[in-house]
């Protein structure tokens, strides 16, 4: 559907809705304003997911104040406005999947909310549960925010949760005059803006990492490809070791950047087919310090610089640059070391940048080799988590 058609459809639906409200429930105009404002805020400042999770709120308010027919009218009006604004703003279209999802979540949330309230306290179906209001808005947006964005399939679950919570407090709001519902515009519009800024920031963080990978890729194609492969495996190994999402995210960035220092090493040495001299080997060893230095001096992710510095340390103390032992090596470095070695054994890049001093090993053989070195070259616990992660990767 093109933008003109969706705008026309949206506007005519809006006219129909306004007429309906004016005739049947004239006192509900604040809810119309709320629904329209929420939808515009969501579509201009945020994304469709946010706008869909608002639908249950407005629909439940409509139900609380005016019954089933009003709730239905709101639903239709909201969707029409979604179409109109999406078309007009060129932000993409709201298609059938979104409409179906919105209807379904609204219905399920409404039913669920009613059952919960009726079961917990039948008398408070119209009670003043205002403390729920604050908790529910905060909790539901937080749920949507964190859960929906991070867990696969989480957007469905969090939409339902958000809708359900909103429905519950809609019963509380049902006891105040509709005009007070306009206060909800604040959190909705500001929340939409916050989501947009937060997402942009995340996208830019990704873009920065991509830029630095490209830098390495230009200087040394093998290393560039290697960095991208290592990141995912390091992150899942970290998750298996119980790192929380934030730390795993940082670990991922560290894994992506772990060989950044190679950008300042002569690629003729990195790719030398014959045996390296001691001097040449010493030169290659500098890459962990160089990588850490780039981050420290620039102030970009200074917290991961120490992990990069130590990514060639070994628990038995025979690593470099400092020969640290066991737990003196940061956990993140131990994880990167393990995944790094595995990838170095199996890694063949399509750009012809095969790691020079060895023939590639098949993944099974490489895993066996990593297991054999558990306790000396690699941390035993890390190796265990790593093996699980490789298994999960194969399953995926």
């Amino acid at each position, binding site marked *: 559907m093109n933008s003109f058609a969706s705008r026309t459809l949206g506007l005519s639906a809006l006219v129909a809705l306004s007429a309906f409200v004016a005739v049947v429930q004239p006192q509900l105009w604040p809810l119309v304003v709320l629904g329209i404002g929420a939808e515009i805020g969501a579509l201009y400042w945020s994304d469709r997911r946010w706008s869909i999770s608002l639908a249950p709120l407005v629909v439940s308010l409509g139900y609380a104040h005016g019954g089933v027919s009003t709730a239905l009218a709101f639903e239709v009006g909201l969707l029409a406005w979604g179409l109109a604004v999406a078309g007009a703003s060129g932000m993409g279209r709201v298609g059938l999947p979104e409409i179906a999802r919105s209807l379904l979540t609204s219905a399920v949330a409404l039913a669920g909310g009613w059952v919960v309230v009726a079961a917990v306290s039948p008398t408070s179906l119209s009670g*003043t549960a205002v403390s729920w*209001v604050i908790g529910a808005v*905060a909790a539901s947006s937080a749920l949507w925010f964190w859960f929906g964005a991070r867990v696969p399939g989480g957007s469905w679950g969090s939409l339902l949760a958000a809708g359900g919570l909103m429905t519950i407090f809609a019963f509380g709001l049902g006891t105040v005059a509709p005009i007070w519902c306009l206060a909800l515009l604040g959190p909705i519009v*500001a929340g939409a803006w*916050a989501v947009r800024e*937060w997402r942009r920031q995340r996208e830019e963080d990704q873009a920065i990492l991509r830029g*630095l990978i*490209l830098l390495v890729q230009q*200087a040394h194609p093998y290393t560039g490809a290697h960095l991208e492969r290592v990141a995912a495996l390091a992150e899942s190994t970290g998750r298996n070791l119980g790192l929380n999402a934030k730390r795993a995210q940082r670990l991922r960035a560290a894994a992506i950047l772990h060989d950044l220092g190679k950008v300042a090493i002569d*690629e003729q040495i990195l790719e030398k087919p014959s045996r390296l001299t001691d001097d040449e080997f010493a030169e290659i060893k500098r890459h962990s310090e160089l990588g850490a230095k780039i981050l420290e001096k620039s102030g970009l992710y200074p917290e991961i610089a120490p992990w990069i510095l130590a990514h060639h340390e070994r628990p038995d103390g025979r690593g470099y640059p400092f020969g640290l032992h066991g737990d003196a090596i940061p956990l993140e470095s131990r994880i990167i070391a393990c995944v790094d070695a595995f990838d170095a054994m199996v890694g063949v890049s399509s750009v012809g940048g095969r790691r020079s001093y060895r023939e590639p090993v098949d993944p099974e053989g490489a895993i066996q080799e990593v297991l054999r070195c558990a306790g000396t070259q690699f941390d035993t616990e890390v190796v265990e988590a790593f093996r699980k992660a490789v298994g999960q990767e194969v399953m995926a």
Partner: protein
Amino acid sequence: MTELLLVAGCAGITVFCLWVAVSARKRRPLMLGRAARAVGVAMSLRGGLVGPSNDEFGQIADRIGARLGWSEAQRVRLANTIQVRQIGFAAIPYQHLRQPHLHRVRERAPEIGADLLERLPIWSQFSDELRPTRRSEVGQLIALLEEFFYRMESAPAMDVLRQIQSQTDDRYDLAMREAAVGVLQESYGNRVARPKVALVD
């Protein structure tokens, strides 16, 4: 009472959301600046021997920008462009960068760098600054400074400045040339010839 709580709760959440949005907005240019610096540090480590450090280059450029009355935004753009200007080194063989007699190769860095920057959404805005035909004043000022520092390796600073001043083509904007020459004279006027130094340690 209910109404009051409702409004207070909503106001609280609104303030929190605004805080999240504003701090994300403030953080973004900060991160971009740091990322540009990371490129600058990495490339000077790779590039080896050359004139002034990025910091010195940036400080001089900023003083000229200030003298020209450039806006804050333009000076930030200048600083970031200076940091990423050598990104082309990444695609030039390490040995070629390190040998002074291969200076020709090094001169291709801006062109290669502009192509690289074009591929990166966060830095593509700086790409044109590295192209002689498309650059704005920011790119012009950087080119002028590059020329000055390169020539100063083999001639006294005052001679180089006089030459730059007497250029008759429109390579550099006239007002900018005046401002740049002024600032460079104050800082390097008594410099005989700048010895090449190994960079960043």
